[in-house]
């Protein structure tokens, strides 16, 4: 069985042969002016610098959806950028509305988990 790539806020391939329970959010809160904290249903915890999240926005205007090359230049994002609202999208992602007007980023939980592991946010 082949894999399918999706464009619903993610560049990953899915279609596993067995669909087990996904990791979801157990609790989520603003920890300080620039930190978002998440506790996952497997009891792992992650923290994210919101400015870093803005720089890693996965939307199609920030990352070329065909080549996956970045369009957004990190230096163009001010250190003062902050979220206005963080909201769940279905049960697989969250969206962040930023105070610089940008609001099209859909951050899947799977992407957020990877971010948390690969970098010390």
């Amino acid at each position, binding site marked *: 069985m082949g894999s399918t790539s999706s464009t*619903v806020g993610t560049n990953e391939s899915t279609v596993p042969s067995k669909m087990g329970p996904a990791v979801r959010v157990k609790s989520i809160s603003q920890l300080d002016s620039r930190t978002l904290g998440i506790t996952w249903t497997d009891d792992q915890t992650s923290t994210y610098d919101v400015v870093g999240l803005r720089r890693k926005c996965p939307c199609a205007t920030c990352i070329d959806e065909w080549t996956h090359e970045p369009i957004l230049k990190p230096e163009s994002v001010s250190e003062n950028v902050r979220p206005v609202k963080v909201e769940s999208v279905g049960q697989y992602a969250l969206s962040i509305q930023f105070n610089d007007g940008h609001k099209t980023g859909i951050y899947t939980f799977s992407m957020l988990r990877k971010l948390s592991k690969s970098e010390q946010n």
Partner: protein
Amino acid sequence: MSLLKSVQDKLMGRGERMTEEQIKQALSTIMDPDLGKDIVTLGFVRNVEISGADVKLDINLTTPACPVKETMKAQAEEALRKLPTIGKITVNMTATTRGKITQAGSPIAASLGQVKNIIAVASGKGGVGKSTTAVNLAYALAASGSSVGLLDADVYGPSIPHMTKPDAPAQSNSNLINPPLAGEVKIMSIGLFAGGDKATILRGPMVSGVIKQFLTQVNWGEIDYLIIDYPPGTGDIQLTLSQTAPITGAVVVTTPQDVALIDVRKAIAMFDTMKVPVLGVVETMSFFVCDDCDKKHHIFREGGGHRVANEFGVSFLGGIPLEPAVARASDQGVPAIKAAPQSPASKAYTELAGAVASQVSIIHEAYKDALNHFSIDWQA
């Protein structure tokens, strides 16, 4: 009490007072077949009343549509009967549907705050009987004692009002629309509004807007199951639905043929991408039973539903036979399950409702710590 009397009582089976401990011990041998735990650990045993040797209790199931209700009652009575000093046994089967899709204060709380479960009924392609399945599933759940709503999300081809013939919607004092009732089920469809017969010519953003309104501006009230009849395919509307509301799980509809299965795989892949649990696959037009020979004719081939369910590791929820009565009833605006409740198709829909309710309970157990919906206003 004298020693003689107490021995005599025991010999006559007139017991000492039963204890709650003994009762729970006996009942802890009964397992819930879906959740894999015993009914005492799961907290199903409630309101235990003991008078002497007589016992009365409730077993509170996770849904009124639980398919093993009668079996579990029999098992409980048998387990209690084994207690040496037991007197009269009264076991009441009750049900409180488990589920909660959002927290108070969330933007979807006004319309969906008292909806316990949202179930998508989807297919990869059209013409497989998805809407008929959604309607009959809704009414079968209602017949089991659940409170049900049915949202027709097929904005371009709404068929639910035709199949159910709801009353006129009640006036609303607030910003929310009240969904009209068709029998016991609350209905919402674009077909209820002006020009229902005319083709709906809407561009994408308007359609998304309508869908969002159906989820955020309809007063669904307190219901156990909101069934959403997804339009066929895997496009904009389906994405908007799955992104706007926390879908508890999806039922995927297919016919047995391979060509339908190709599209089913796409639908399952779409749900997997958005991490919507797939409750299982239901196969429609499974077979036709000739009323003369009682033989099952597999007109659209055989086994496809099982195959694709195995491939994805999801449940096979059932096969619905092809019956002229079902199509006729649909066209007349009465679901088959009401028009012909003894028919094989109706029985299949009732079993489907039980299977769906079971899978929903399993999902809840698996995700009981998860937040279904959250919204944070960031403080400076």
